[in-house]
């Protein structure tokens, strides 16, 4: 849903066949080559470690040498994820939709801040 809502305005890497860990790994890789993260990579308070969706916003272009603050946050988030034992669950389509709405709303909330700062 995030990918649909914001495509056109931003460069979006949508990881369809993956999970939250794959999203964080991709973001971490981007940090390695100099992108800076703009939103906190940890999940919001909703369904801790259980929502199948995760979005992380980064700078569109690398900003020079690797940003250690970004890397630190990414690695901590990954470490937390590693510790979490995912409980297998079957979730109905309606609830998946609700998880997407919340994922999108977190990004919208970040976007307001970006816009206010003249960065979007």
């Amino acid at each position: 849903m995030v990918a649909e809502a914001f495509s056109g305005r931003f460069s979006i890497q949508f990881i369809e066949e993956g999970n939250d860990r794959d999203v964080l790994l991709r973001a971490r890789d981007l940090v390695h080559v100099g992108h800076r993260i703009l939103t906190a990579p940890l999940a919001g308070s909703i369904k801790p470690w259980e929502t199948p969706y995760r979005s992380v916003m980064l700078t569109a272009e690398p900003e020079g040498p690797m940003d250690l603050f970004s890397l630190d946050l990414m690695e901590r988030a990954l470490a937390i994820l590693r510790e979490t034992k995912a409980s297998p669950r079957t979730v109905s389509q309606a609830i998946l939709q609700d998880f997407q709405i919340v994922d999108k709303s977190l990004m919208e909330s970040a976007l307001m801040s970006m816009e206010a700062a003249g960065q979007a």
Partner: protein
Amino acid sequence: MKLELGYIDIKGIRFGTYNAVEDRVLVVNPDTLIEQVLEDPHIKAARFEIASPGEKTRITPVKDVIEPRVKVEGPGGIFPGVISKVDRVGSGKTHVMRGMAVVTAGKIVGFQEGIIDMSGPGADYTPFSKTHNLVLVMEPAEGIHPHEYEKAARLAGLKIAVTVGELARNIAPDETVVYETPTIAETFDAKLRGLPRVGYVMMLQSQGLLHDTYVYGVDAKRTLSTLIRPTELMDGAIVSGNCVSACDKNTTYHHLNNPIIEELLARHGKTLNFVGMIITNETVYLSDKIRSSDWTADMAGFLPFDGAIISQEGFGNPDTDLIMNCTKLEKKGIKTVIVTDEYAGQDGKSQSLADADELANAVVSAGNANETIVLPPMDHIIGTLDYVDTIAGGHDGSLRPDGSIEAEIQVIIGATNELGFNHMSAR
């Protein structure tokens, strides 16, 4: 600033053909209240039910819990900027209907909201098993967005609480407590000299849809960290728009009855000098997190505090805000105690917080939210059990065929409240 709270102890609730408080029993006419709720076109249907302590009753999914109050003297009204017009509250006289609550229930999205059990093992974990509850169960109009409905449900609960609170206006309180907070100049009075200058940093959940908190009607994520008088909260300056993480969200009831404020005010002028409190948000955007925590630490140094209590709301990425606030204060030489809860896994073996720092060396824990509990079947369900399998901390098969529920205690409203409202902890 001086606020007098007159507590009226409510002993029960019953339905009638009129609205009144008679012999400390609340009588309400559900029809007139339903009419008021349905004024909002976003709400399709509404009904009221009563749940009293000790009954074999389960309320789920719960959105908010609100204590009815009424402003008897002084400027403003309850829930300023939301229900009452914007005016500075926190002084004068307010009547409180103690021992009861308005509880809003019904589906917002298909997961997240929690449980209140009025008896049994689950009742020990929630303060709202001990209150007489007037439960408002709602259904959204067809096709509206979750955020529109969340707002409608939030406002409906607050409106009903104000309508009910109004009934206590002319009743003589059973107990009166005066809460007085000093100005900054007064905190330098001779009589307070020598006492440690203590502050309170209150973090407000403000990450987005279903994760929001409102201060005088302003969405907290659009605010800078700021000062607020503790007595303003007692008049409803802060309301909950948070319907996630049942166990560690601050309901509006918690905001009205903030226990950290109570403890600090009770010791003010005796063992400590309660200088003031700062509210700060928990956001998604990193620059906001940095700005808010910088601002908080700077303000704490400006007042200044010698020490501060920092309370969190929620978990996950707010742990980052918590640790930022804590370390930035500590680095200014302001000693901190943080109040949080733990997500140590069902086996209790995982790292409890998503972020950590050795400067956070004084932690009060409200317990491990992942610990499991079996809630026995109840005779009466208010709301619906349709979502028990999917609320946070529930899992497939949470709801057993006999109606009992096996789940983590995070399904229970207020179980690991991070204002330190409860006695539970973990080691």
